[in-house]
């Protein structure tokens, strides 16, 4: 095991895959010579050269169009969209072209590409640089959607995403870039579509994603210590494919479900999981399904306000305690 930051794991995954496969190329704004505005890609151009790691203009439609065209014709490109909020300026090519073309052509072509992006709040960047937009991606048929919570998963899931024959939107949580963790030495690949049971428990299942996972884990500690409630914590990791098997196993056991989402409330991924459980596992439930989300508002930028509105461990504790009452 090596200690590595979430940020370093991004580079490690890309380097691992570029070394083994010449067809992997990587483009984006300020990702090459400058090494990325979040310093996630430093040194890649030095190692892999100017043809494989290239800076682009501020032309998100061109960037995403370019990786789409390249993926259709034999490459395995990676694109960076600097902040996930900027998916909005190239959403047509993501959601209408890349996601649909394989289906529309009944499988004539694939899009083995990855779009990485810095997602989420907590950095006081204001409403246009802080969104959690994993639900934007989840709602589009034809996109795979991954959001890791630890350096090991960044490396393993990003490697798997690059190898995947389908388009993957890979959400890196910007508030986690500085966090560290153990990452297995040598080649490391974590299959997509497998949720991770991070903590076993018997009274309630807490399902979380990305930055919310640490809140869920902390809440579970508090619940155990202060309320005698045994919480099982599941890191969903991948919204599409969604590992309903693991979630169902847990909820069948605990009979209670709480989801913790960073996205604003309406049509968040927690709503989908809630609706699946309410439909397919209803008779196993012994209480309401509770969602902890950012309220349905844009994110304010002042630190005091941003902290007040984002989900937190204590909000999760409150929700679970209320549910257990």
């Amino acid at each position, binding site marked *: 095991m090596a200690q590595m930051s979430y940020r370093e794991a991004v580079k490690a995954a890309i380097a691992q895959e570029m070394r083994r496969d010449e067809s992997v190329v990587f483009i984006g704004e300020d990702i090459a010579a400058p090494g990325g505005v979040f310093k996630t890609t430093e040194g890649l151009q030095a190692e892999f050269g100017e043809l494989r790691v290239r800076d682009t203009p501020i032309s998100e439609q061109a960037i995403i169009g370019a990786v789409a065209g390249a993926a*259709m014709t034999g490459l395995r490109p990676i694109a960076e969209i600097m902040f996930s909020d900027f998916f909005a300026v190239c959403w047509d090519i993501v959601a209408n072209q890349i996601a649909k073309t394989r289906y529309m052509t009944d499988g004539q072509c694939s899009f083995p590409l990855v779009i990485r992006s810095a997602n989420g709040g907590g950095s006081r960047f204001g409403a246009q640089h802080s969104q959690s937009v994993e639900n934007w991606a989840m709602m589009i048929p034809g996109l795979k959607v991954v959001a890791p919570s630890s350096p090991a998963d960044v490396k393993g899931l990003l490697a798997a995403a690059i190898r995947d024959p389908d388009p993957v939107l890979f959400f890196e949580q910007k508030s986690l870039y500085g966090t560290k963790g153990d990452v297995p030495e040598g080649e490391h690949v974590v299959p997509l579509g497998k949720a991770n049971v991070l903590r076993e428990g018997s009274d309630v299942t807490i399902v979380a994603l990305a930055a919310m996972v640490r809140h869920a884990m902390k809440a579970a500690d508090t619940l155990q210590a202060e309320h005698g409630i045994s919480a099982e914590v599941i890191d969903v990791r991948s919204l599409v494919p969604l590992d309903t098997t693991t979630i169902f196993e847990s909820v069948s056991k605990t009979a209670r479900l709480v989801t913790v989402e960073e996205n604003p409330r309406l049509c968040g991924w927690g709503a989908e999981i809630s609706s699946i459980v309410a439909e397919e596992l209803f008779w196993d439930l012994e209480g309401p399904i509770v969602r902890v989300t950012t309220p349905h508002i844009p994110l304010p930028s002042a630190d005091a306000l941003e902290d007040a509105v984002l989900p937190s461990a204590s909000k999760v504790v409150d929700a679970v305690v209320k549910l257990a009452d």
Partner: protein
Amino acid sequence: MSNDTGQLMAAVKNAKAPDTDTRLELYRQMQACRMMEQRAYDLFMQNLIKGTSHLALGQEAVAAGFGVAMREDDYTFCTYRGHNHTLVRGVSMTGILGELMGRECGLLHGKGGSMHLMDIEKGAMGSYAIIGAHMPIAAGAAWSAQYRKSGQVAVCFFGDGTTNIGAFHEALNFAAIWDLPVVYVCENNLYMEYTPIGDVTAVENPGADRASAYGLEPVLVDGNDADTMYAVAVAALDKARSGGGPSLIEVQTYRHGGHSRADPGKYRPDEEVEAWKKRDPVITYRQRLLDEGVDAAAIDAIDAEQSARVDAAEETARNSGPPPLESAYKELWADGSSSWRR
């Protein structure tokens, strides 16, 4: 627009007429397009084609000129008005008509429809129905060819109206700075749907007058002349293949019918329609070949051959059943499934 005619305009000006085989091939492709599109129109009228469809009757010389000039492994990217561009790559006419009719024999087994023809084996890389989107995608295919050193060129067709959308601008700048082997062909048929292009565009020639914004040569040619189209295609493909980077070519042409099935095209002055019909690319080219001494029998043979081809394609498509319902649940993912859960 600069007065400098540059490399492509010079090539067009200096081009000699192609040899007779090439000219007959240009005529064959135009006639194939013409007859297929006319048949598509008839099939609509019989309600055998549902939804919508955008015919390119009158614009055949553009597709044919490029189709004949392109290398087999080059890439074509086109729009909803892309039946011709697809056909000239050697794609099955049965597959095209079958797709329009939503039949199992369709190119995409009914999952795409008239606006989304693709035959990737033939380099027909898809027809895109949202304005502008395919322009950066074509740049991406060209980038891939450049990276793989394959010598392939991507050709991307689009309309005059498309020059006003953001993706046009991003794609051209991107292609220019990376010297990508891509040829952008703006088919100026004077209208974006029902609106005259001049009403909504700040320059007179929506493609040519913008080339300099990307450091490119302004190119404006007659899109109803198959020889011209062939010459400009050869020049632009050569330029791209030899590392000379992208081109933006505006061709002036006209669609004989309305924008789509729903549109009778009444907003166009009668004289305008008449004037352009006199410049019908198929009829005028036929006459030119005859005038210049090409054997009438050879031309007639092409007419007969293509007419039979369309009949056969229609017949096969009519006899093909609807696609199996299971296919609706297939091929979202590369594993062949559409499952979102594990």
